[in-house]
């Protein structure tokens, strides 16, 4: 049997997990629900809540609940959850762990690998953070694929004729647009563009601001400081948005929001679709501009597009369909479920990687141009930071390009290699994503050749190598946002922290079935040991971690005698620590 790799759509507001089973793509339901809201909370007992229950708790305990964590991925900040600070990776890991458990329960075996989707326009740091979230959750992220591409893959597998398609993907927090060619079972992305901080959350925010202003004007109270009332307003705004997708008016009623100077504050207001659409018009226009950029990137005109595929819950907003109709002259497709198709595409890609036959193969592109800076000319003037693009946007992945540079002056021993992402001829106007020095160059005249190789992998992550041609002296880095990045040890610690939140039962969870009593016993010991990690010296912790690793490899290799031996050692340490 092939090992199981699950496909995960880790969304801003909703997440899903899917697999391919007997050639059919299946989004796995948990309690009959295929959609897991991307909410994480800790209840008053200290237990962890993920999904629906956390979303419900948000109204009562906003300070114990985190939503839309995806918006913070890749940033060096911490969020507060019931008095503890967590990195965005850790919160995302909690959602992933839940999805992993849902899948494990369904397939009745342990799952350790996943394909996770990310917005096409996610930066390197955001991708890295997503990979780390997977690791913390105990999932090896075998591939990250772009969300609009995944949707196209889910749709394109069944297409027999050649089609050119525009994928318009507006989620809770991100926007992507891709132009895709589907032909002979190959889903080929021609161009991609987007905005990684634009989505349905912004629409909610517009309504929220409107409601808050209304309360300020009519009742003279500012609710911005009252987190519970604000949570209710947020939910009301979101509901109004849903209603306005179907109806021309939405009635917003929230009673007993707050007591203010002896008076009870109620909210009652009617919002029309026309007013709402005026509030979000700038956002929609920004997405249409991105559509134009993507079309230009694919060197196509609207007449070349055969179909429009809408992805993401926010595309239910009627004016989006209208604006796209105005651009292209036909209605977007609606066969595919905009909430589920991304997870389905991830599952198809996962099946492909695990060696199953699938009817569509994917060729994706990078939405970014990557390059370096060199001494040169800008607008005919001498300029030390001229941008030299090396991998151009919309090139197929994976990709590897090498450019040769020469040293500027005699006896130059050091070159500074700076890597940028962007299109501007002035490198300083682009985003600097990494920098390193190549030192100890040979003492020769100017013109010493240094080659610079940029390698962009299938996950959209960049690796950079610089080499002095004459000597082979090489220096390389993998571009990761150094600040947001977890060191290996930190990842390990985060994993234990998150495991502990889930409690011991969860960590053994669905895995134990069909296992020998020795293994079950050993797993209990491991859970016990992990629970003690916080209270022990780092020396004891390291000993335990080594033993745990040993035990796990014994289980994998089926070495029963050695397993018992090692487990006994671990039991000793636990006994010693507990006494």
């Amino acid at each position, binding site marked *: 049997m092939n090992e199981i790799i699950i496909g995960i759509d880790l969304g801003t507001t909703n997440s899903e997990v899917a697999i391919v089973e007997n050639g059919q793509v299946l989004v796995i339901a948990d309690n009959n629900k295929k959609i897991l809201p991307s909410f994480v909370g800790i209840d008053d007992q200290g237990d962890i809540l993920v999904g629906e229950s956390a979303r419900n708790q948000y109204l009562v305990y906003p300070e114990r609940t985190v939503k839309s964590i995806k918006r913070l991925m890749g940033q060096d900040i911490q969020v507060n959850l019931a008095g503890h600070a967590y990195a965005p990776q850790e919160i995302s890991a909690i959602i992933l762990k839940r999805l992993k458990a849902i899948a494990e329960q369904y397939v009745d075996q342990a799952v350790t690998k996943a394909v996770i989707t990310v917005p096409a326009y996610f930066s390197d740091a955001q991708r890295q953070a997503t990979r780390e979230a997977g690791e913390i959750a105990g999932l090896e992220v075998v*591939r990250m694929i772009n969300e609009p591409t995944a949707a196209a893959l889910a749709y394109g597998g069944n297409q027999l004729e050649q089609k050119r398609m525009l994928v318009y993907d507006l989620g809770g927090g991100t926007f992507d647009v891709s132009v895709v060619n589907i*032909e*002979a*079972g*190959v889903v*080929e992305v021609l161009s991609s563009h987007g905005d990684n901080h634009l989505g349905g959350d912004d629409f909610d925010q517009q309504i929220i601001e409107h409601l808050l202003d209304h309360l300020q004007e009519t009742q003279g109270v500012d609710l911005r400081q009252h987190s519970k009332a604000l949570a209710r307003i947020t939910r009301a705004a979101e509901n109004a948005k849903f209603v306005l997708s179907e109806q021309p008016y939405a009635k917003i009623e929230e009673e007993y929001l707050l007591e203010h100077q002896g008076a009870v504050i109620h909210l009652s207001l009617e919002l029309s679709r026309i007013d709402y659409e005026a509030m979000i018009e700038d956002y929609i226009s920004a997405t249409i501009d991105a559509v134009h950029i993507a079309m230009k990137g694919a060197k196509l005109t609207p007449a070349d597009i055969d179909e429009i595929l809408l992805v993401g819950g926010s595309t239910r907003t009627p004016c989006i369909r209208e604006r796209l109709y105005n651009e292209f002259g036909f209605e977007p497709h609606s066969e595919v479920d905009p909430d589920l198709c991304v997870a389905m595409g991830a599952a198809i*890609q996962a099946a*492909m*990687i695990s060696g199953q036959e699938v009817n569509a*193969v*994917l*060729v*994706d592109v990078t939405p970014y141009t990557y390059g370096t800076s060199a001494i040169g000319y800008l607008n005919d003037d001498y300029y030390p930071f001229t941008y030299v693009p090396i991998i151009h946007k919309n090139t*197929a*992945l*994976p*990709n*590897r390009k090498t450019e040769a540079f020469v040293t500027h002056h005699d006896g130059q021993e050091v070159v500074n290699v700076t890597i940028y992402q962007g299109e501007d001829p002035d490198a300083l106007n682009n985003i600097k994503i990494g920098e390193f020095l190549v030192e100890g160059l040979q003492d020769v005249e100017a013109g010493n050749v240094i080659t610079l190789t940029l390698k962009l*992998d*299938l996950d959209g992550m960049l690796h950079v190598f610089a080499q002095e041609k004459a000597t082979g002296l090489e220096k390389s880095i993998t571009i990761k946002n150094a600040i947001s990045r977890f060191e290996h040890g930190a990842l390990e610690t985060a994993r234990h922290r998150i495991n502990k939140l889930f409690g011991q039962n969860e960590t053994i969870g669905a895995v134990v079935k069909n296992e020998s009593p020795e293994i079950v016993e050993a797993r209990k010991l491991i859970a016990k040991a992990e629970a003690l990690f916080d209270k022990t010296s780092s020396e004891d912790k390291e000993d335990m971690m080594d033993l745990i690793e040993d035990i796990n490899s014994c289980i994998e290799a089926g070495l029963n005698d050695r397993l018992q031996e090692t487990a006994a050692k671990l039991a000793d340490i636990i006994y010693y620590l507990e006494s």
Partner: protein
Amino acid sequence: MKTPYEILEVAEQATDSEIKQAYLQKVKLNPPARNHERFQQIHSAYETIKNITSREKYALFNYPEADFDALLDQAFSTAQPLLISADHFDKLLRASIDDKTFLIGNPKKTTV
């Protein structure tokens, strides 16, 4: 070193759409997710010869053994305007008429 034509297994006289179909077939059999190197080779072969303009550039600068007659035929019959310079076109023409006059980077022919 295989030529892009050999990698995609197409004739030098192949049309754009034949080349595209051959490329898609190859990609289907060698998805980027399974074999990075092989895919990159296939993709860059396709980029090199995907249309008449790129085929001409490749022939003029990197592939002196090209079938210039076929290229010239295609150049004349294509509906799209040629995106090569007059100079390149001139060379192409001359190469097609008499490959002895074709002097770019082919020691084998120039020593005749």
